[in-house]
């Protein structure tokens, strides 16, 4: 049995090798940031042990600010600078700014969040500072999730690095199932939808607008959840349990529930480190304090995606949707889903899901639009009285709808499973042939869909 130390060294080297492949020029930044955070965590804990609370607080704040500063510099510097320059020029001041056009280092949005999380958790005394630098560095650079998450928390991930991992058959099977389902979602759902939605946005076809409006959330979901599942599946084969990122988001009956099911590793992160402190600080302001905290929370989530004003508007839009829930006081409730015949959701539940889906779809129009004006233009096109035409050249609309609907339905019925394709219970799926039939069907679909050549890049690697 290999020791954890040995395994972690291998894992770290592999992770850095993968990172060097993805973005060799910025590998130094990953290593430097890891070193700094490690030092801050260690320093904070020592200061707290000696009772130097204020110094510990200052150190943590400095470390977190450095990480945030890094992110802001790479993601938003041009955005803010151009804004400042533009307003100065409109006042008649003659200034110029050569856009730095800094290229965002691969995975920065994700690993910087891991580092901030670590420093804050040590400060809050909810975890002990990591003593093993190799383990810590492996956590930060973990190659399956370095590119586009999920964002793991130190309290769940570091303990796994302290134990040795054996190659287990269950893990390989489990991981393979996740990878299979993830690949299916990405290649057979997201990549099929993407040419149409791109056409609707870029080419401005009236008749595609409605289709694109309804399908874009599905596309985003399939793309990102597919990618996340593949990353989680790879980690699983290595013996690691990585944070879940999606939990049937379109089963949400209101916007609050939606955000508890969508990109969960990001939203729980922002909830823990932005919403919680703010809502506690403003708790004397009752509902208004909550409203303000929710707004900041969602704006941060929106702007995390990048420096476009549409991301800000996206956050504000969702914050607006939360207001009835905040003031009505009902968003904390996770009521059990009421089902009707065949285990499908009851009618009222389905209506709520449909309503939430439409609200989310509008949000995605804002998210996807190249600028604020285009949002309105796109929404207006939805009301032109024309039927949506064929979804993609050379394709059959019904085939796509069947695949997408089938995928959604499958996810719905698998919702109580621990992860996709993990069949439980005493039903049909306990038969080996039934399960393998499913796997072969998925592989067949993968083969068919991959052949259309519509494969596109993962959307979330740009963030």
């Amino acid at each position, binding site marked *: 049995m290999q020791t954890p130390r040995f395994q972690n060294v291998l894992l770290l080297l592999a992770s850095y090798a993968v990172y060097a492949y993805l973005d060799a020029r910025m590998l130094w930044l990953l290593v430097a940031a890891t070193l700094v955070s490690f030092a801050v965590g260690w320093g904070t804990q020592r200061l707290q042990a000696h009772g130097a609370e204020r110094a510990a607080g200052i150190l943590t704040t400095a470390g977190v600010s450095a990480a945030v500063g890094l992110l802001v510099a790479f993601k938003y510097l041009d955005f803010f600078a151009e804004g400042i320059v533009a307003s100065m020029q409109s006042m008649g001041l003659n200034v110029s700014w050569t856009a730095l056009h800094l290229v965002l280092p691969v995975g920065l949005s994700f690993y910087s969040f891991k580092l901030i999380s670590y420093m804050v958790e040590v400060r*809050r*005394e*909810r975890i002990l500072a990591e003593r093993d630098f190799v383990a810590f560095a492996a956590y930060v650079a973990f190659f399956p999730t370095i590119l586009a998450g999920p964002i793991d928390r130190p309290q769940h991930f570091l303990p796994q690095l302290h134990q040795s991992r054996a190659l287990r058959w269950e893990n390989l099977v489990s991981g393979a199932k996740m990878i299979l389902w993830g690949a299916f979602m990405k290649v057979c759902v997201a990549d099929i939808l993407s040419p149409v939605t791109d056409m609707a946005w870029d080419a401005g076809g009236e008749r595609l607008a409605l289709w694109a409006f309804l399908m874009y959330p599905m596309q985003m979901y399939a793309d990102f959840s597919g990618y996340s599942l593949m990353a989680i599946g790879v980690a699983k084969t290595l013996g690691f349990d990585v944070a879940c990122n999606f939990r049937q988001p379109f089963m949400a009956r209101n916007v*609050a529930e939606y955000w*508890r099911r969508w990109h969960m590793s990001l939203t729980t992160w922002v*909830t*823990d480190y932005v*919403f*919680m*402190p703010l*809502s*506690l*600080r403003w*708790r004397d302001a009752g509902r208004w304090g*909550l409203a303000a905290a929710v707004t900041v929370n969602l704006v941060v989530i929106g702007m995390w995606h990048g420096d476009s004003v549409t991301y800000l508007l996206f956050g504000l839009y969702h914050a607006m949707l939360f207001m009835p829930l*905040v003031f009505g006081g009902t*968003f*904390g*409730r*996770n009521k059990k889903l009421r089902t009707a015949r065949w285990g499908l959701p009851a009618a009222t539940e389905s209506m709520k899901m449909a309503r939430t889906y439409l609200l989310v779809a509008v949000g995605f129009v804002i998210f996807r639009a190249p600028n604020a004006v285009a949002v309105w233009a796109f929404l207006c096109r939805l009301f032109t009285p024309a039927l949506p035409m064929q979804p993609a050249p050379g394709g059959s609309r019904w085939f796509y709808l069947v695949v997408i609907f089938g995928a959604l339905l499958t996810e719905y019925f698998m919702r109580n499973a621990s992860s996709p394709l993990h069949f439980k219970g005493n039903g049909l799926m306990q038969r080996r042939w039934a399960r393998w039939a499913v796997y072969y069907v998925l592989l067949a679909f993968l083969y068919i869909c991959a052949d259309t050549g519509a494969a596109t890049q993962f959307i979330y690697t740009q963030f």
Partner: protein
Amino acid sequence: MFNGQCSMNNMTSQEIYNRLTAVFRDVFDDETLTINPATNADEVEEWDSLSHVQLIVAVEQEFGVRFTSREILKWRNVGEMAEALQQKLS
């Protein structure tokens, strides 16, 4: 089952838990809810970030105390909250 010795501290601790249970039941709207030192958000279905703040406010009002954000953010379960309460009250 009672311990052999019921010191003042133990009684106060039990009283704290009794009053906390009442607060929890009220905030989470569940008359059957029971809590113990290990209880945390993972175990109570309706305990999320929003109800967490409402819980804090309710606890502070019930016991007439005030915590700093820093103190609150440290708690990992009900036991740690109860300890902090006990310290504040004594």
